[in-house]
């Protein structure tokens, strides 16, 4: 059986509507990130800005495995995760504009998107810092016998942090319902995995803690979705944590301040040929799931959504400076 046929079988199984839904979500992220880059150049967005282009299949595929009751912990490259989790593009952009209608009231910015309604626990800009938080959220679920999963996204750079190892050990020791999703884009800022890790096989690291672990092509949204569903099902069944490595690549620089001295342009171009959106479009077209018109409709809807979001963010307001000292301690003193 050749690869094309295998894929076709998978695609057929999920159905056209779902396939187009996945495609649309990836395109929504791509448009959001392109718009962020433009708005950064236009100085509407400031601070650090880390874009997700190239990695869309990971957030889109994994979110399909989660329910509304589950929790998400993410990193500073989290615009895509936030959008697909259900935070509106308008409140995400308003946040990056620093407006009070932003999902973190303008207190967080690009790196700290939060949303209680969708159980989106940030937006953590300390590499590895979100892992213990995910362990604790899962501990709370276990102690209160709630059948939930906490999904923790992080990059491969985090595996060098002590908190990765402490969290793997704790989650495994206590059999906690955490889905660890490692987005291996090969570079921790500018340092290649092979230059920073003695063991570059990340699955082995997780497995050494007796954590169920698997690796998947993070450029293939269907593969990510299938792997994430399998992983989430294992976590839900009470077997403890699961480590899913998604092998992916970031197409843009680490942040807006990065001249990309550390990687070959040829390497970037090679990976761009594996663009999760373009390859998925090709597959869908080959299988007759997607016409040019379908694509136009999807692109049009995504563009409209992001355009309206920009207009929303523009129209949002600045928090009065008199409120500066709010949200340091809770305004309700007890419950």
């Amino acid at each position, binding site marked *: 059986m050749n690869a094309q046929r295998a894929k076709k079988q998978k695609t057929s199984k999920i159905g056209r509507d779902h396939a187009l839904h996945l495609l649309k979500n990836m395109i929504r992220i791509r448009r959001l990130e392109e718009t962020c880059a433009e708005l950064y150049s236009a100085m509407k967005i400031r601070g650090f800005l880390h874009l997700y282009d190239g990695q869309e299949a990971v957030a889109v595929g994994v979110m399909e495995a989660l329910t509304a009751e589950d*929790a998400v912990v993410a990193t500073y490259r989290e615009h895509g995760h936030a959008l697909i989790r259900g935070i509106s593009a308008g409140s995400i952009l308003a946040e990056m504009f620093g407006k*009070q209608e*932003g*999902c*973190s*009231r*303008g*207190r*967080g910015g690009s790196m*700290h998107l*939060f*949303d*209680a309604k969708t159980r989106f*626990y*940030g*937006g*953590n800009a*300390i590499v590895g*810092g979100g*892992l*213990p*938080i*995910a*362990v*604790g*959220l*899962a*501990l*709370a*679920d276990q*102690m*209160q016998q709630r059948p939930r999963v*906490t999904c923790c996204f992080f990059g491969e750079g985090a595996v060098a942090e*002590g*908190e990765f190892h*402490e*969290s793997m*050990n*704790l989650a495994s*020791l206590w059999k906690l319902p955490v889905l660890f999703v490692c987005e291996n884009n090969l570079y921790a800022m500018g340092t290649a995995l092979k230059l920073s890790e003695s063991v570059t096989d990340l699955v082995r690291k997780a497995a050494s803690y007796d954590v169920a672990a698997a690796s998947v092509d993070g450029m293939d949204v269907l593969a990510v979705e299938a792997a994430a569903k399998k992983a989430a099902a294992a976590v839900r069944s009470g077997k403890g944590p699961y480590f899913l490595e998604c092998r992916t690549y970031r197409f843009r620089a680490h942040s807006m301040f990065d001249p990309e001295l550390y990687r070959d342009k040829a390497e970037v171009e090679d990976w761009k040929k594996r663009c999760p959106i373009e390859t998925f479009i090709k597959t869908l077209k080959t299988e007759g799931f997607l016409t040019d018109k379908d694509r136009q409709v999807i692109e049009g809807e995504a563009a409209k959504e992001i355009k309206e979001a920009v207009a929303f963010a523009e129209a949002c307001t600045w928090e009065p400076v008199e409120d500066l000292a*709010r*949200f*340091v*301690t*809770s*305004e*309700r*003193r*007890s*419950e």
Partner: protein
Amino acid sequence: MSHSSPETMRRLTYRDAVREALAEAMRTDERVFLMGEDVGRYGGCFAASKRLLEEFGPERIRDTPLSESGFVGAGIGAALGGMRPIVEIMTVNFSLLAADQIMNTAATYLHMSGGQFNVPIVIRMATGGGRQLAAQHSHCLDGWYAHIPGIRVLSPATHEDARGMLWTALQDPDPVLIFEHSGLYNLKGELAAGAGPVDIERATVRRPGRDISVISYSASLLKSLEAAEILSAQGIEAEVVDLRTLRPLDEATFLSSVSRTHRALIVDEGWRSGSISAEISARIMEGAFFELDAPVERLCSTEVPMPYAKHMEEAALPQVDKIVKTIKNMVKTHG
């Protein structure tokens, strides 16, 4: 607050007061659990949780691996997930291994999320010197943590506070750090049979006096009270103010005291430079300058990492004789 009549007073150690508080909190609120290194089977490195495992079981008296960042972070996550964790760190020096989670997560989540995610965690740890434990187990960093907005810092000096601060801290919607001075655990003292929760907002005058305000906290408070007793026999009446809460500082109480006595000595086991004593001195300058008859003075720990040798350690810490001498000098010189 609850107080019983004097006839129902009983004698117990500071450690027993802490243990009673832990047990009562666990009995009263099923969301409360204790987590830390050796809190269960070992009974706590200072025996504060001795025998609690038998009553509450290993789920709620939870031994952890030596992963300070991991289990403090897990406590934060559990707090976000609806539990009321009490995390014990063996000593303040080890808390530095969890400083990332305390500073970058616990203290910031409410703010970064624009008020959406408060972190109701209580972190207890032993602090302070005097037991010949040298330079990695003896420091008094209570005041250092008090620099951080977003957390509350408690330093219980008395049995009543050791017994009563924990429950009030657990009602706080935000992170609370409780510093238990390791030199106090064995100390016997009087406690009302019905002693219960105490206020954690206010400093208090532990001994009234007209000649000078001695402002202190934790073990140094007891030394200050001892010095005041000695001085009283010599006709000098020192008013001793127990700060109790180092953040937020209750400046009204010590400014009011200074306004009555017109002199202030701050006794602080922390190092002098950049200390809580420096902060208090500055606040007196800002808030009661024209009430002063003499410059504010400070007695702090000598600025060395703590030495092991007994005579050297004693020389490094604020001591009763030094307090007596300093006060006599201040009252005489500026009398």
